[in-house]
Structures are given as structure tokens and as C-alpha cells.
């Protein structure tokens, strides 16, 4: 999924522009390929006409899933397990096996041990080396992050934030669902900001960075808590790097924002849709019920590819039902 016009070996004729225009005209309900070059995302084409072009052979490809809410069983989606299993089948059907999967939080619905256990077993069904998870606010309800860590302790260090390098990319997982003061947005908190500063100190500024955080790391809609109180501090630490991609969940819909070299993307859920930010006539960010047959168009997965030496990052957002 590298941008053809950045690849000297690629075809001179580039049909992507025409496809981009058509997909921008009617992009809802079909997968869209995005490339991020120099921090500016561009639509490359819709995939409704066939499978996406195979990623470059040396690309690192991974998949983002989010907001599985295992334990949710209400009208908006009585079968969240079935939705996750459909996503798993989609992942197994990809032309290039992803290196790993990231889950950007709200693994469970009510932080119950049996929900965490079921989610862990379901995620083990994905045929990849590893599923990297971060907590959402639904995973930290009764005892902070303690219950979640009993099932999803990334490094065995008892922390809900971590980093790792793979394929020439520095990955960072964050917890931005706690550390709030009453009446405010949740935050990363001073301890985690301090850790992030130390973690980034040893990373080359030319190394691509991918950050995972559940709640958007920019303020999408403050009255609904769709933002992170101290995200500006994290953005300041990330700004010197040449290629930063932030992957969020929480709001159950695809949105993008670009700030310099930092591109931020929210993902679809695998449980139920939520209203658009501040959507008129709704008033609160609760599950949206849609007619039968519509739900699969609003849930989905995201495939990402990074080609070494390029700052291009290609994203394909794919609904369960195209």
C-alpha cells in the first residue's frame, strides 16, 4: 500500500487520483486506503472494486481493532462475540498476514474477570504472533487497572503503558482513561508523561512512531469526555519526530486530525456505533441502535502498513459489511 507516486519502481500511470475522487464522493460503507506522507493523509482509493493492492514486500503490516466490549449484550448489538469473530475471519483473509494486532481499549464492557477471560481467549483465536492491548475506561471500572492487568499485563511489569520496537517502528501503548479530577477529562498523568519522556529520549527522531491510546489524544468533543486532559504535553514530546501516527478508539467511528507530522486516527468499534460528536437530537454518547443489516457497515477493522525508509503509512478502514 505504499504510495505509487513515491515509489520510483511503481507505474507512472497512477489511477489512485481518480479512485480517490470517487471515494471521497461516496466513501461511507466502503474501505478507504489512506496514505500518510509528510503527515498529510491522502485517500488513495476505495477497495470496493476488489481486494486492496498487496503491501510492499518489506512493509510492516498490522491490524487495529478496538472497543470489543465483551460482555455487552443489549439491543444495539446482542452478539459482540460474533462481531469479533467476523473481524477475526477478515484478518485471516488478508492477502498479507499481519505481524500483529493492536486493540485500542474497551476490551471488556464491565471489567468483570469473566469478560477479560473470554476476551483473552477470543483474541488468542487470531492467528498472529501477538495482540497488544491497552485499557479503556470500561476495563478499569471497579479497581482501576488492577483487574485488567491480571489478564493483559503487556510486559509483566504491572504497568498499563509500554513500548516496543518492531520492523523499524517504535510502538507506544498508553493508558489515558484514569487520572481525572471530577468534572474534567481523563488524563495520562504525571507519572506516565514522565515515563513517555524517558522512553522517547532514546528514540531517533527519524524513526516512525505509532502511539496507541484509547480516548482520542485530541479534544474531539469535550462535553462527552472525548479528549485527554493532558494530551498537549504528550504532543509536545512527540512533535520533534518526523513521522508520528496516533491510533485511538473510544468514539466508535473513524475520524482523522493532522497536526504537523502527527496524524491522529480514531477507529471503528466491534460492538456498537456511537453518535457523531455532539450529534444533534441525541444529547449523550450512548449506543446507537440501527436497523438490522446496517450494524455491520458501522463496525470494522483497520489494516496499517509501514514501508521502511518511507514516512508513508497506509491505512485501510474496512467495515464488517462493505
Amino acid at each position, binding site marked *: 500500500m505504499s504510495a505509487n507516486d513515491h515509489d520510483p519502481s511503481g507505474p507512472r500511470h497512477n489511477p489512485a487520483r481518480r479512485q480517490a475522487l470517487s471515494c471521497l464522493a461516496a466513501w461511507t460503507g466502503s474501505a478507504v486506503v489512506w496514505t500518510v506522507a509528510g503527515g498529510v493523509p491522502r485517500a488513495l482509493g476505495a477497495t470496493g472494486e476488489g481486494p486492496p493492492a498487496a503491501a510492499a514486500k518489506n512493509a510492516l503490516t498490522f491490524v487495529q481493532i478496538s472497543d470489543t466490549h465483551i460482555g455487552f449484550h443489549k*439491543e444495539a448489538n446482542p452478539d459482540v462475540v460474533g462481531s469479533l469473530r467476523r473481524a477475526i475471519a477478515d484478518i485471516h483473509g488478508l492477502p498479507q498476514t499481519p505481524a500483529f494486532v493492536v486493540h485500542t481499549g474497551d476490551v471488556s464492557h464491565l471489567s468483570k474477570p469473566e469478560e477479560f477471560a473470554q476476551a483473552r481467549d477470543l483474541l488468542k483465536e487470531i492467528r498472529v504472533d501477538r495482540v497488544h492491548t491497552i485499557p479503556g475506561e*470500561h476495563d478499569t*471500572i471497579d479497581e482501576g487497572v488492577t483487574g485488567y492487568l491480571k489478564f493483559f499485563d503487556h510486559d509483566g511489569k504491572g504497568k498499563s503503558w509500554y513500548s516496543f520496537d518492531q520492523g523499524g517502528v517504535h510502538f507506544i501503548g498508553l493508558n489515558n482513561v484514569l487520572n481525572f479530577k*471530577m468534572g474534567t477529562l481523563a488524563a495520562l498523568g504525571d507519572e506516565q508523561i514522565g515515563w513517555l519522556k524517558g522512553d522517547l529520549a532514546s528514540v531517533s527522531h527519524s524513526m516512525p512512531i505509532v502511539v496507541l491510546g484509547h480516548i482520542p489524544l485530541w479534544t474531539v468533543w469535550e462535553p*462527552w469526555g472525548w479528549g485527554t486532559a493532558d494530551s498537549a504535553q504528550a504532543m509536545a514530546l512527540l512533535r520533534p519526530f518526523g513521522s508520528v501516527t496516533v491510533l485511538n478508539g473510544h468514539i466508535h467511528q473513524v475520524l482523522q486530525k493532522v497536526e504537523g507530522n502527527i496524524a491522529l486516527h480514531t477507529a471503528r468499534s466491534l460492538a456498537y456505533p456511537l453518535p457523531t460528536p455532539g450529534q444533534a437530537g441525541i444529547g449523550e454518547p*450512548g449506543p446507537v441502535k440501527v436497523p438490522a443489516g446496517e450494524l455491520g457497515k458501522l463496525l470494522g477493522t483497520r489494516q496499517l502498513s509501514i514501508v521502511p525508509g518511507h514516512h508513508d503509512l497506509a491505512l485501510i478502514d474496512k467495515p464488517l459489511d462493505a
Partner: protein
Amino acid sequence: MTRAFARNTTHPLRAGLALVFCAAFVTPAICAAAAPPATTVDIKKFAYAPKEITVAPGTKITWTNRDETPHTVTSTDKSFASKGLDTDDKFEHTFASEGNFSYACTLHPFMTGIVHVRKQ
């Protein structure tokens, strides 16, 4: 102060009917002897209703989550805290002494409420 977490243990109408009965037919003194004062707060549309409430010492407040999204009732001073309340789950707390008790939802900290406990 007592703490209690009730999951669908009391019928929501019972407390309300008792209050109506007391107000309509019985003197306050007898009423107080028959049942301790009690009142209710609904959690709906990501808000506490009412958001602000004033009660007498000894009053039991029952919160009921009417949303499809879980919420909590968690006091700022840690004197009371519910577990995660799923749809129709209830949380009870009896306010023994006077004071102002602010609380929030730990999942959605923009949701806040306050209980004023005053002798009346």
C-alpha cells in the same frame, strides 16, 4: 455511615409509594418511625437527576442507572463508591452526618452530582 451495594434488590416503586403514603395520610413523626427517610436519584442520559439534592441526616439515597452504558457513583472524599452499575442496577448509601458530598462517574468524569446533608 453505612455502605450498601444493591443489585435489583428493591423495587423502584416501593420507596416512592411509601413517601406518597406518608405525605398524604400520616403525620411526619409517625412516618419517620415507620421508615427512615429515603429518596432516589436517576442516572440517565449521562447525567445524575437531580444533579443536586438536599436531604436530612439519616436519609438513604438510592441511585438507579437508567442508561445502557455503565456508570458509577463515586464520592470525591472516598466516603462512598458504587461498583460499576449496569442498566437498572442500584446503589444505596445512607448519609448519617451533615456535609456536602460531591461525586462523579469514574467512567465519565464529566458526570458530576452533589448531596447536601442538612438538618431541616
